[in-house]
């Protein structure tokens, strides 16, 4: 038996984990499960695709950084995609979520996110049709890593990127002033207000972080798999399952759970059949909810 599935699982798990960070932060700080999160991911991927095209059009072909399949244009495009996703998230919050949050019924906000998700996703289908798109059609040769496992240079680069983003995120939340404020607000919103934490800035930071990481994950999916309007919807259940398995509010938990889900999915593909892959996160979700609803690192809700 080849151990390749472990690596495949880690890679798709890294993308799930990156997306789940946004879900877990939105849930713990804004107190609603955001069904539009996957669509921020898809919008990020398409924004990057458009930007890569525009840069290519302006500068002519730019050679990729060997041995990767992409070069500077994609790196710039990813920053652009993060900005686009942030703007969408902030505008949505301003137009929709903030107003409904003010009424105090959390579940209405969930429903609004469901409506927004449908609108965002189908707007993508309208603009780009449902056929898949790719950043690059070049084939990459996977290099042997030992023990019969092979990895492509792209995969290495994106795993390193994930590691950097997650570590940075963890340091931001634990070491910076704003990060501490975010965690304080998540733990006790009323008390956080009393001690003078700027709640609006906390909410803004939550959206920016969540959307930027979603866009990064979207670009990663685009580089390693493909870009489709439905890509966010397909990853939504794994991301929710990762956020809950990791424990709501825990960034390391979300990433670790993302990896667990990614590896479980890869194992299911190997041992049961690729067509059942999407069911794995549901099984894990149900098991967590029945056995330990607080997840791996969560604390009981007050």
């Amino acid at each position: 038996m080849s151990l390749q599935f472990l690596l495949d699982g880690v890679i798709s798990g890294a993308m799930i984990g990156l997306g789940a960070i946004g879900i877990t932060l939105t849930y713990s700080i804004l107190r609603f499960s955001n069904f539009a999160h996957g669509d921020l991911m898809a919008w990020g991927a398409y924004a990057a695709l458009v930007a890569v095209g525009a840069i290519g059009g302006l500068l002519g072909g730019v050679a990729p950084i060997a041995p990767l399949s992409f070069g500077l244009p994609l790196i710039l495009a990813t920053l652009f995609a993060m900005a686009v996703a942030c703007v969408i998230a902030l505008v949505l919050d301003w137009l929709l979520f903030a107003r409904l949050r003010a009424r105090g019924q959390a579940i209405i906000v969930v429903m609004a996110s469901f409506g927004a998700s449908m609108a965002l996703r189908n707007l993508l289908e309208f603009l780009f049709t449902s056929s898949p798109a790719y950043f690059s059609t070049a084939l990459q040769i996977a290099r042997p890593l030992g023990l019969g496992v092979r990895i492509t240079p792209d995969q290495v680069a994106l795993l390193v990127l994930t590691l950097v983003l997650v570590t940075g995120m963890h340091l931001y939340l634990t070491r910076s002033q704003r990060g501490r404020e975010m965690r304080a607000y998540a733990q006790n919103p009323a008390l956080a207000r009393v001690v003078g934490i700027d709640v609006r800035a906390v909410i803004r930071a939550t959206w920016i972080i969540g959307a930027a990481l979603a866009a990064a994950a979207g670009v990663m999916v685009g580089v390693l798999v493909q870009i489709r309007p439905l890509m966010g919807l397909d990853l939504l259940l794994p991301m929710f399952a990762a956020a809950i398995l990791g424990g709501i509010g825990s960034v390391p938990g979300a990433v670790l759970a993302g990896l667990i889900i990614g590896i479980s999915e890869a194992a299911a593909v190997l041992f049961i059949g690729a067509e059942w892959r999407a069911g794995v996160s549901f099984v894990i979700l149900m098991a967590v909810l029945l056995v330990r609803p607080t997840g791996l690192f969560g604390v009981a809700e007050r």
Partner: protein
Amino acid sequence: MIDLLGYGAFFLSTALIFGIITLGLNLQWGLTGLFNVGIAGFVAVGAYTSAILTTPETADRLGGFGWPIALGWLAAMAAAGAAAAFTGFATLRLKSDYLAITTFGVAVVVQLVALNAQGLTGGPFGVAFIPRPFAGLQGDPLAFNLANLAVIGGVTLAIFLALERLARSPWGRVLTALREDERAAISLGKSARSYRIQAFAVGGAVMGLAGAVQAHFIGFIAPDNYVPTLTFQVWAMLMVGGSGSNRGAVLGAVVVWALWIGAGSLSSALVPGDWQARAASLQIVAIGVTLCLILLWRPQGFFGPRRGGGME
């Protein structure tokens, strides 16, 4: 003229089937405040249950039980109700968001089973030759459509009256009390979880029945019928009609379905062929935006009582 009447009957039948689903959602959301994003999944469970139990024997799929249609419908209610009860059992002691996420997962898994468990569901090709009520009348489309409309209208009316009675019964009043002031209701000795599971299960059973009725009305089902767009349409119907009101649920279903069909035929008449798929996407965008606008500006809907349920 006769054609128009036949089409009218067909349209109303389809709309009323949506009305039944919306009635089920109104029990879950409007009366009890439970958020279900997996409506398509529960509808599919009902449709497949009844279809498998009533279709004639097929070589490559479980079947050949040859049950009468009415029994198939009852089984559909039982299966979808059981699925909803299990979902509620697993999640209703937790925060309401977990129910939403789990129902979303249920819809994903049901879709997966419908697509891949070929021996049970026929896979991507679905189930065909589902017996249709009044199949003998099929030579005369008008009579066939009117007879089916009568059956579907009868089912809708029965569910409507039953839900109205339930809402006014002591059971329904506990649900309203739980929604309005959970602590007060619990302090009166009512188990919030158990009542919510019951309401969710009954709502799921109603959705399953609607799925079965639709399967037998069309005579053919496939996994494509049960995509998230269905869930979304039903939510739009309930929000337009006014959640908390059974009358609003049915009227909302008819109105939204009329708009949906109208916009669809308008775009197929006006939009050139290669833009049809895009026009269809835009239609869903419009519904999504409408749903958000209603949540913002008219949470009580348009046809319900002044005080919308589930919203305050």
